[in-house]
């Protein structure tokens, strides 16, 4: 079965502190991996994606994620968060063979505290 687990539903963090949002996936085939951000009352916007090659992927707004195949993880990190990073973050995967759908996690609500 294919699934995505986001281990933390809510993450509060102080402004300018580092943050890590955890994501683990389950799939019997190789996958492409994505992180999306959703600001209030908006659709989802792509932060970054892993397709192949280097396991460290850099995205927009200073975010990065590292693909770890042995641990089936794709954790999102930022060294110093801003108030504007307050949003919902979704991890997703799509298998490389058929890709009929994107499998999403339940989301992590990041709240940056001034």
């Amino acid at each position, binding site marked *: 079965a294919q699934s995505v687990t986001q281990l933390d539903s809510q993450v509060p963090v102080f402004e300018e502190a580092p943050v890590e949002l955890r994501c683990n996936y389950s799939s019997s085939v190789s996958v*492409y991996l*994505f992180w*999306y951000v959703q600001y209030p*009352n*908006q*659709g*989802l*916007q*792509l932060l970054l*994606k892993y*397709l192949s090659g280097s396991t460290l992927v850099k995205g927009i707004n200073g975010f990065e994620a590292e693909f770890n195949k042995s641990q089936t993880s794709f954790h999102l990190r930022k060294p110093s968060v801003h108030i504007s990073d307050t949003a919902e973050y*979704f991890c997703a995967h*799509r298998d*490389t*063979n*058929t*890709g*009929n*759908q*994107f*499998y*999403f*996690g*339940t*989301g992590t609500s990041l709240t940056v505290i001034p």
Partner: protein
Amino acid sequence: GAGVSQSPSNKVTEKGKDVELRCDPISGHTALYWYRQSLGQGLEFLIYFQGNSAPDKSGLPSDRFSAERTGGSVSTLTIQRTQQEDSAVYLCASSLSRLNTEAFFGQGTRLTVV
């Protein structure tokens, strides 16, 4: 168009009425997806289109839900005899047919059944 467009942005309907939600994907995107996002929940897959055909309808929650896509472009999601549990944000996304591409999301339609 420049992005995925959904209409209406908000819809309030009475229980038992039918509703139609529209999605205009990005021009040239052959894959189209519908997802449902309930309050505090992740994204629930509803249906996937490749061109005008729907090879994966596995996520439609009941036979009250149907969707079609015409001309390989616009898609309509129809909910018949709406129930209060249908209240949610309905998100549409499109992507190129290549598997190593991300999905681009619209702003969503917020459906409220009263």
